[in-house]
Structures are given as structure tokens and as C-alpha cells.
């Protein structure tokens, strides 16, 4: 038995025989031709067959996956008939007396490199559509008879280098139980499709094609990111049990989607999601998120060559607020600098970027950037339940200064006759130990805290989280961290303020019982962690967890805390 690791792209377990999906060799050679009309007729015939195929795929996608997923094939059909593509190909065949496949390949390559060189990530990805259409026509031109995944008629696991949009659309859910690919990441096209089809998948295995052959028995473990080749009967039995358990659990999670997060002793906590773009909101709602606990606005500033305008930002904030339909949305103001660079700001390199000129420190210096963002946020505030959060606050002075700038901008907007909400909560990230220690003073002035554990841990332990050699010091369960978290929560509650957490720790199965016991009000995590967390919390008692947390605070090491939590989970 072989065990190949990759990236868990779509949850679940699948067990079936391997179907190797290998794309043929599409390299084409330049040939001189004698009969231009025959060559053009050959091209037209290949285009016609491709068109018929695409129409069939589009129809099937429409039936099985809905209109949105079928749209991609509507655009493929347009590319196939695009005069900007076909006219130059025919002209080259006629003018240079060359073969259709070479002329097509050359013209298509120009469009592929055009897309690849575009600024927008979205348009760069359109190169894949162009390649997909070109290969389809080349199949017919080169007379390649490639067994398409649409022809699969028994239960299989598809193994491939990567899956193109038309490959995934042709996968028949009745027979394709899972897939594994050599390349790709969690956000690659094939991974996204796998999740929407709910087919277990592992991507980025690097060499699954080299390790397995047609007909081998395969287990795809989309939970832990493993692919097993020719497992023993014992292992198969083990995975069948894991599969049943997961399927039962998923059915249970589904039922919790529209339920509140309430402990057995009737304490409600809020489960929120961390997002980076307005598109992420769909996933938040699908997973039963009660709020957005952290909207990272950095993505608006990245991947472009100038600062985003006030209107671009306003539209993004408005979209998130509207889609959340009145549920709270905590927007973190720009957290850039240090390791997250913006080339167009031309900031000097620093020796200690994590301790340097970043986030609110940069914003309070570059007020032009800060004011633009605040105006966009204030204008968007009337479209939902906006909460604004300043990152990397180390002193009360910084908070007061940031708040004053926000109030100035609000006054200006009101004077301009622009509506601004009067109920915007203002809070801070607690990620610097000085702020955690002085939380009682901050709590008098802020509306809420959100504990950013990734940075709080690295600053408290003095361990760079990018440095693997000190990775052992990244200890969320260290009693020192738990005590800081407790100080922050207690300080806030004494002033009647709420406390959230938006670091990795908030969605962590081991941390959740402790955080619940410490009195955390809001847990913000990746959207896919929400339902498992809700399932876990609804089985816990806050009173019991308070006892557990009290014991954990008196432990000596992180290992002891983990053991303690595991003792109640067993």
C-alpha cells in the first residue's frame, strides 16, 4: 500500500478503482499544405463537432449544477465562434499555406499569453478557458480519440494531472466518487468544483499519476489530504468506518445551519466568519455564519498598481453589508506593512517587519490612505450593521487618534449631506501584549475587543511565526496565553463590552471548550469551521467549561492543558 499526501480540497472519503485521466500530447508541427479549401473545411468540421460537444456539456451542466456553472460553457461557445480567433486562423491557413492545427495553436497562444499578462487575477485565469477550447478543437483536428470522463460508466476515482473546467463538468456524480490531482491548491478550479459537487478530493499530490495505474484500488481521504493506493482489506474497512462516521456527522452539521449556537445550559455565543472579499459572504451564509467577525480589507489593496479609490472600497463594503442582511460585519481597517507589502507604497525594507511600521501605525502616518478608507466605510454604514476595528493598537493614544480621524470624516460627510449610520461600534484588535495587560483601561473607551491570537501568541512568546525553527513556541494553549485572554475578557465584561476572537484559535476544537469557559462572546473562524464548532458547543455546558478553564489557568505547560481538554473529550 502506498500513501500519497496532498492538499485536502473537498471533505469526505471515497473508495473506488482508479480511472486515469490523461490528456493526450497536443504538440503540433507546422506543415505546408496544398489545398487551402480542404484545410479550412477540416477546421470548420472540427469547430462544428466541438460546438456540438460544448452544447451537450452546457446542457448537462445546466441540469446537474445549475445556471451559474453552465455559464462558463456559454462563454466557451462564444470563444469557439469568435471572429477575432477564427478569422486570423483562416487567414493564416490561406496566406501561409499552413496546416489548421498549427494556425489555431499559434493564434490561441497569443490570446493565452494576453490573458496571462493581465493585471486582474480573474482575467489571468481566463487563459485556462482559452486552453480548454483550443484542446477541444485540436482533439478533432488531430483525430485524437481521448476517453472523456463523460464516458465513465462504473464507480471510479479520477486521477489526473489537473482537471479542466470541462473535465469537471463532464464528471458524472453517479460514477465519479472522488478525485486526486498532481497539481492545484485549495482555491484552484478543480477544488472549488469538487466542493460544489460534494465529491471528496485531494489536490496537489505532485505524483499521484506516477504512483497509481488504471484499475488500482484507491482511497481518497479529503479530510486529511491523503490518497491511498492499493490499501489492504483492513485499511479499507477502517476507511469505510471513517466514511460512515463523516457522512453521519455531515448530516448532523447540515441540520445546525439555521440553528443558534447555544450551550446545554442555555448560553448563546456568536459564531462568525473571517472573510477577505465580498465573494466570501456566500460561503459564510451557506455555513450558517451569524456574523462576519473579521473582514480583512488588505485584499482590496493587493494585486493592483495603485491605491483603491474610495468608490471601489465603498462598493466592496456595501456588498458585504448588504449580503449579510443586517447581521454584524466587523471590518478591520488596513493591516498592511511588515510582511504584507504593497509595491506601490514603496515602503523601506525593515529588519523586524512584524515589529515595524505596519497597520494602524502606517495609517496614522499616511492619513490620506486612512481617511479614504474611513470615508468609504462610513458611507457604506447605512447598508447594514457595520463595526469598525483598528488593528495593532499598542496604546490608548493610538486608539483615540484613530477614532478622532473617523469622527472628523463622519462630520465632513454629514456636512456634505451624506447619510452615515449612528450606531457603528468601534473596537480594536487585541494582539499586542501591552494592550491585553491594559485591557481594563481600553475597555472604558472601545465598544468591543477582538483578540487576534496569531499575533498575540507570536508577540507574547517572542517567536516569529514565519520561522520554522521556533515553531514549537507557537503555543495557543500555553497558560500564559490563556491568562492574557482571560484578562481581556474579564476587563471587557466589567465595562459591559463584548469580546471576540478572530485568530486560528477561535475555530480550534481543543481551544473552544477553554474559550467558552473563559467567557468569549464571539468566535470568528473560517466559514467551513462554523458548523463543526456549533455542533461542538451545543454539546458543552458553560458551567462545566468554566471549571475546566479555571483548572487550565493553573497548569504549568501547554501540554498539560491539552491533556486536560482531551480528558473531557474522550
Amino acid at each position, binding site marked *: 500500500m502506498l500513501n500519497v499526501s496532498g492538499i485536502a480540497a473537498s471533505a469526505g472519503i471515497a473508495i473506488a478503482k482508479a480511472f486515469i485521466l490523461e490528456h493526450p500530447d497536443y504538440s503540433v508541427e507546422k506543415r505546408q499544405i496544398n489545398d487551402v479549401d480542404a484545410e479550412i473545411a477540416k477546421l470548420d468540421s472540427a469547430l462544428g463537432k466541438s460546438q456540438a460537444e460544448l452544447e451537450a456539456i452546457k446542457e448537462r451542466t445546466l441540469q446537474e449544477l445549475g445556471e451559474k456553472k453552465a455559464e462558463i460553457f456559454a462563454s466557451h461557445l462564444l*470563444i469557439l465562434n469568435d471572429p477575432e480567433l477564427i478569422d486570423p486562423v483562416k487567414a493564416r491557413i490561406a496566406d501561409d499555406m499552413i496546416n489548421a492545427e498549427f494556425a489555431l495553436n499559434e493564434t490561441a497562444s497569443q490570446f493565452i499569453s494576453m490573458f496571462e499578462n*493581465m493585471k486582474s487575477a480573474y*482575467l489571468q485565469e481566463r487563459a485556462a478557458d482559452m486552453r480548454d477550447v483550443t484542446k477541444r478543437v485540436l482533439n478533432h483536428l488531430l483525430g485524437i480519440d481521448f476517453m472523456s470522463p463523460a464516458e465513465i460508466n462504473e464507480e471510479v476515482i479520477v486521477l489526473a494531472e489537473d482537471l479542466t473546467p470541462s473535465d469537471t463538468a463532464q464528471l458524472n456524480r453517479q460514477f465519479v466518487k472522488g478525485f486526486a490531482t498532481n497539481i492545484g491548491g485549495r482555491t484552484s478550479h478543480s477544488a472549488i468544483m469538487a466542493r460544489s459537487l460534494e465529491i471528496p478530493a485531494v489536490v496537489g499530490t505532485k505524483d499521484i499519476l506516477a504512483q497509481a495505474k488504471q484499475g488500482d484500488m484507491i482511497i481518497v481521504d479529503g479530510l486529511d489530504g491523503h490518497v491511498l493506493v492499493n490499501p489492504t482489506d483492513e485499511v479499507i474497512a477502517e476507511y469505510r468506518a471513517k466514511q460512515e462516521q463523516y457522512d453521519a456527522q455531515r448530516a448532523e452539521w447540515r441540520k445546525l445551519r439555521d440553528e443558534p449556537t447555544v450551550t446545554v445550559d442555555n448560553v448563546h455565543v456568536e459564531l462568525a466568519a473571517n472573510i477577505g472579499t465580498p465573494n466570501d459572504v456566500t460561503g459564510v451564509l451557506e455555513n450558517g455564519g451569524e456574523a462576519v467577525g473579521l473582514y480583512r480589507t488588505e485584499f482590496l489593496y493587493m494585486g493592483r498598481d495603485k491605491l483603491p479609490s474610495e468608490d*471601489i472600497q465603498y*462598493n466592496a463594503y456595501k456588498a458585504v453589508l448588504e449580503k449579510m442582511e443586517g447581521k454584524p460585519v466587523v471590518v478591520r481597517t488596513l493591516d498592511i506593512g511588515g510582511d504584507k507589502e504593497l509595491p506601490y507604497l514603496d515602503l523601506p525594507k525593515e529588519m523586524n517587519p512584524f515589529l515595524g511600521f505596519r497597520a494602524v501605525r502606517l495609517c496614522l502616518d499616511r492619513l490620506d490612505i486612512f481617511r479614504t478608507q474611513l470615508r468609504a466605510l462610513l458611507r457604506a454604514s447605512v447598508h447594514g450593521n457595520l463595526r469598525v476595528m483598528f488593528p495593532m493598537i499598542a496604546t490608548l493614544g493610538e486608539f483615540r487618534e484613530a477614532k478622532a480621524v473617523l469622527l472628523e470624516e463622519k462630520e465632513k460627510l454629514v456636512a456634505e449631506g451624506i447619510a452615515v449610520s449612528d450606531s457603528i461600534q468601534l473596537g480594536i484588535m487585541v494582539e499586542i501584549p501591552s494592550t491585553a495587560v491594559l485591557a481594563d483601561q481600553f475597555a472604558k473607551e472601545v465598544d468591543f475587543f477582538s483578540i487576534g491570537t496569531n499575533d498575540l501568541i507570536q508577540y507574547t512568546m517572542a517567536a516569529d511565526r514565519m520561522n520554522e525553527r521556533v515553531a514549537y513556541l507557537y503555543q495557543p494553549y500555553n497558560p500564559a496565553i490563556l491568562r492574557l485572554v482571560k484578562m481581556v475578557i474579564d476587563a471587557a465584561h466589567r465595562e459591559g463590552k463584548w469580546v471576540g476572537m478572530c485568530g486560528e484559535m477561535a475555530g480550534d476544537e481543543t481551544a473552544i471548550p477553554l474559550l467558552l469557559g473563559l467567557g468569549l462572546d464571539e468566535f470568528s473562524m473560517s466559514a467551513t469551521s462554523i458548523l463543526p464548532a456549533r455542533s461542538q458547543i451545543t454539546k458543552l455546558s458553560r458551567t462545566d467549561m468554566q471549571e475546566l478553564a479555571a483548572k487550565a489557568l493553573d497548569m504549568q505547560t501547554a501540554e498539560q492543558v491539552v491533556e486536560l481538554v482531551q480528558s473531557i473529550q474522550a
Partner: protein
Amino acid sequence: MQQTFRITDEDGIHARPATALVNTANKFKGAESFAEANGKKVTLKSILGVLSLGLEQGDTISIIVEGEGEAEALQALTDVMVNEGLGEINA
């Protein structure tokens, strides 16, 4: 005839609305439709042409229609721009 729009969609002009624009332009056989942005003019009958403009949120685009039924065609294209949430009319 022409109409200018400001792109409001956060993804710029992406494949779905571009498909709708080209399909609409193709319905009006007697008219030639063009899109002009960032100093580049392309036929609206080519999706590759429209995507090659590389339009992003905040950019402006002019849609130009000439020939038979141009008023009707321009109105139909304007409807696509606005209804697809792609852009707003730039006054």
C-alpha cells in the same frame, strides 16, 4: 451613437456579462457595435476582444453602435450593462 459607463462590478467585466454583451450585439445583424476603453477599440461581436480590454472596477467604457437599428441595439446593450450589475451610466 454611443453611451459611456463606469464599471461598478468588483471583478470588472468578467465572462458571464461579457457573454451576454456579445450575444446581444450579435442579435443586431445590421449594426456594428464596438467597445472603447483605455484607448483601445474592439468589436462587441468578439468575447476575446471585450475581455482583452482588461476592464476593472472604476474604469470607464464607451459602447458605440453604428448602422441599422442602432438606437434599439444601444438600448439593449445598455440594459445588459445595467441589469448585469456591470456598470452604471456615466452622465
